[in-house]
């Protein structure tokens, strides 16, 4: 009846679910009993039975059976909303992992350079934040054992966080129909205790870290020229995680979506003191994985951000 519970969110979601199931069972039973009882007690025994007298209604009764169920519903609403906010608001000190979905596979990148297809390795006891990107259509990253999912929407970054609790191997499913092999866009989430996780990380990482790959892209696409050498573009040290003043007067937070947009569509938000139509538009030139590597690199330039060290 219940899948494995492997995250801190899972038992909380299950508890709320049990509350809902109990309420539903009680309500359904009450209705069934009432109907069954009335059907039996008031069944017509003969065609000559007297015509029942009319009972038009009762406002006090109507109010009672409207308000009381609504109060139970308010509990559902409040509890569910609170849990939702918690489950979708990452804490500060997360281990960041980057996921790109494309028809029909999941490409997972770890900051230290590890890459996997259709597998996600996470440690217990530490909050993990997933940044989700899509290369094509809408997908959804669903881990039933964690009771969590979020759509993966092309053109944007979606995130969610979790903290795994039980080592084990759990299903990973795409949960938004995405074409022919939607039902094959599945994989596994491997939860390991912290020591085993470190061993796994050490054993696998051979190539460059995401940040190093990002730095290479930073040079390849000429970003260095304007952002470092001749100051046509704003310097990127200590940008990530801090507010940025724009030319049009707005102030925005320089988070991952901001960085992505600034690379793909630079004129959407021009930084104060700089001109529009100077930075090339990179839409269509860098794939989602490359964008994530660039972003991890730029994050590393923010020394006050504890996530800087990959």
């Amino acid at each position: 009846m219940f899948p494995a519970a492997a995250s801190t969110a899972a038992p909380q979601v299950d508890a709320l679910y049990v509350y809902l199931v109990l309420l539903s069972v009680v309500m359904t039973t009450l209705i069934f009993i009432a109907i069954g009882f009335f059907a039996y007690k008031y069944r017509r025994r003969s065609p000559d039975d007297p015509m029942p007298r009319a009972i038009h209604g009762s406002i006090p009764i109507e109010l009672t059976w409207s308000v009381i169920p609504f109060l139970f519903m308010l509990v559902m609403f409040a509890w569910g909303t609170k849990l939702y906010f918690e489950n979708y608001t990452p804490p500060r000190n997360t281990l960041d992992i980057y996921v790109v979905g494309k028809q029909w596979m999941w490409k997972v990148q770890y900051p230290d350079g590890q890459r996997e297809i259709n597998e996600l390795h996470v440690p217990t006891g530490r909050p993990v934040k997933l940044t989700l990107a899509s290369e094509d259509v809408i997908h959804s990253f669903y881990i039933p054992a964690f009771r969590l999912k979020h759509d993966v929407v092309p053109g944007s970054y979606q995130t969610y966080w979790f903290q795994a609790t039980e080592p084990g191997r759990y299903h990973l499913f795409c949960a938004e129909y995405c074409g022919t092999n939607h039902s094959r866009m599945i994989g596994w989430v491997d939860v390991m205790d912290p020591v085993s996780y470190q061993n796994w990380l050490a054993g696998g990482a051979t190539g460059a870290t995401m940040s190093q790959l990002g730095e290479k892209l930073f040079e390849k696409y000429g970003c260095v020229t304007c952002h470092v050498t001749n100051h046509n573009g704003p310097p990127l040290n200590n940008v990530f995680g801090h507010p940025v003043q724009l030319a049009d007067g707005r102030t925005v937070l320089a988070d991952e979506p901001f960085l992505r947009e600034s690379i793909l569509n630079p004129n959407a938000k021009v930084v104060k003191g700089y001109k529009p139509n100077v930075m090339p538009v990179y839409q269509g030139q860098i794939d989602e994985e490359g964008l994530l590597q660039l972003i991890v690199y730029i994050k590393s330039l923010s020394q006050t951000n504890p996530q800087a060290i990959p």
Partner: protein
Amino acid sequence: MADTDLSVAAHAAPTTLKHHFDDREQQLESSTLGMWVFLLTEIMFFGGMFGAYTVYRNLYPAAFASTSHYMNVTLGATNTAVLIFSSLTMALAVRSAQLGQKRALISFLTFTLILGLVFLSIKYVEYHEKWVDHHIPGPGFHYAEPQYFHQAQILFFLYFAMTGLHALHMIVGAGLIITLIAMAARNRFSSGWYTPVEMIGLYWHFVDIVWIFLFPLLYLIGRTMR
């Protein structure tokens, strides 16, 4: 004159009270309510696109300001005047029908039709202008400011979708007016019954009002930006 006095004609024409109605009042009220409900559905129909327009205008204010400069305000304003005037002639047509004045009815309907065709002609000129500029969304689209290429294409797409849907409604309206003219010429209307004139009049006014919303939103607002 025999052809301005329709009371004789009314007796000659077949009865226009449908069998399922109790009286003419019920029939007229039903037709009127029906037309208003239909216009409500039209509001929702256009509404979806006004919604999409609002989203993209707010998402891409700079691109919106840029594309606004390619809207031909002169032609748009002319069209606005043409439509408003056509609503006047349409209202006068309804009035003529009310008074049983067949010649005036046909004249005003014809004026309205002509004005509608003028609107559509001007629209054609505008669309042609856009075609020459390569502003029609699709494989041939081209935009002078390359950094706004994609946003401009979406905004022009919405421009064409909204004005195109409106123009389609105008064409249908023109067809309906032609039908009314034909019916009037055959003495189908009298001061006792002219419901189609009234109903199509309502439709025409609605199409006019949609344009009154389209014109400022598509042609005027963006020009104050930048």
